[in-house]
């Protein structure tokens, strides 16, 4: 069964959530998200079933708008973000 973890927040300017399909993480050996993200947003932890899954680092959860701004220029935003390119399993989605 799928397990989607959403980390982030909503403030006056919008909703900033990163969704991780952690079932895909449990089958992932590369952990490309770790080095592929210049903002060091991700870390790997053990879930409740002792599987290694990605999560959003606690210190980044309430600052996603600022941290990710560098990858999301107002004009010319790439179709796929660096984290999404680095994650070959397509487990990462951004709400904004």
């Amino acid at each position: 069964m799928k397990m989607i973890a959403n980390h982030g927040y909503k403030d006056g300017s919008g909703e900033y959530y990163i969704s991780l399909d952690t079932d895909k993480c449990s089958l992932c050996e590369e952990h490309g998200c770790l080095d592929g993200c210049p903002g060091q947003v991700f870390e790997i932890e053990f879930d409740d079933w002792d599987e290694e899954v990605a999560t959003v680092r606690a210190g980044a959860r309430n600052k996603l708008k600022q941290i990710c701004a560098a990858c999301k220029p107002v004009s010319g935003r790439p179709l796929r973000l660096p984290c999404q390119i680095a994650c070959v399993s397509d487990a990462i989605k951004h709400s904004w």
Partner: protein
Amino acid sequence: MNENETKEYWRWKEYNWKNPDIPDWRGSLVTAGVDVGSTSSQAVIMVDGELYAFSNMRTGSDSPSSAIDAINWAMEGTGLTLDDIRFTVGTGYGRVNVPFANKAVTEIACHARGANFMYGPTVRTLLDMGGQDCKAIHCDERGKVTSFLMNDKCAAGTGRGMEVFANLLAVPIEEVGAMSLSVEEEPAPVSSTCVVFAKTEATGLLRAGWSKEKVLAAYCSAMASRVVSLLERNGMEKDFAITGGIAKNPGVVQRIERILGVEALKPIYDTQIAGALGGALFAKALFAKAGKDKPALQGKMAGR
């Protein structure tokens, strides 16, 4: 200093409880869950998967001693010692600092499992309104989490935010909900989503002549709107239940129900124990899975 300045209006009832229907635990499997949250800590003891005893208290200055105090208080009058508990799961914010736990499990998984026990297997959407954060959780009929969404931004919409308001308005926290529902006309929610600004706004409204009831209604309404947006973002599926301290506040619960057009399941247990209860259920399952006794399992805690 007057009485209002010294009285702690935020203080909620701390207590322990023992199930009178289970006269003795000897010869049975005893497991425990200890939830060390940012503002409150609970310990739940189960006997053969039945709720036997629990404690609910304020978290102290550090997680290990809060966990020890909580389990000791839950064991009070039962004849149990820590050695009689075959498996313990630590959960909550301080879960890795429960010194006697065999394993740490996230509060998200524990709340879902606890809610499944408390409300039954029909619960699909769970709102956990904790001391310093708020989580929208989806789970299946076994209480396994299928998705969650956490508000990581600030204390608005949380127990801590409500405590701040209770103190500010000098209203005992248990009375906040009922008082907020006594207004004849529902005021607009306070506009700020940050508890610090909401406090400033509330002070301004009091100065402008608003009654305490009206200010509380505006705050409960803001809190309800805020958490409903979490539920909407994660998807809302019936049955719906609320856990955590704010689930005891009818002013927030009824407003959430009104906005969603869905009634929350009515709790028969203290909604604050859901995490620890889920922990004790995990402990039972993990003990059965391991098929071993506690000392052999303690190594599993390393680094968790």
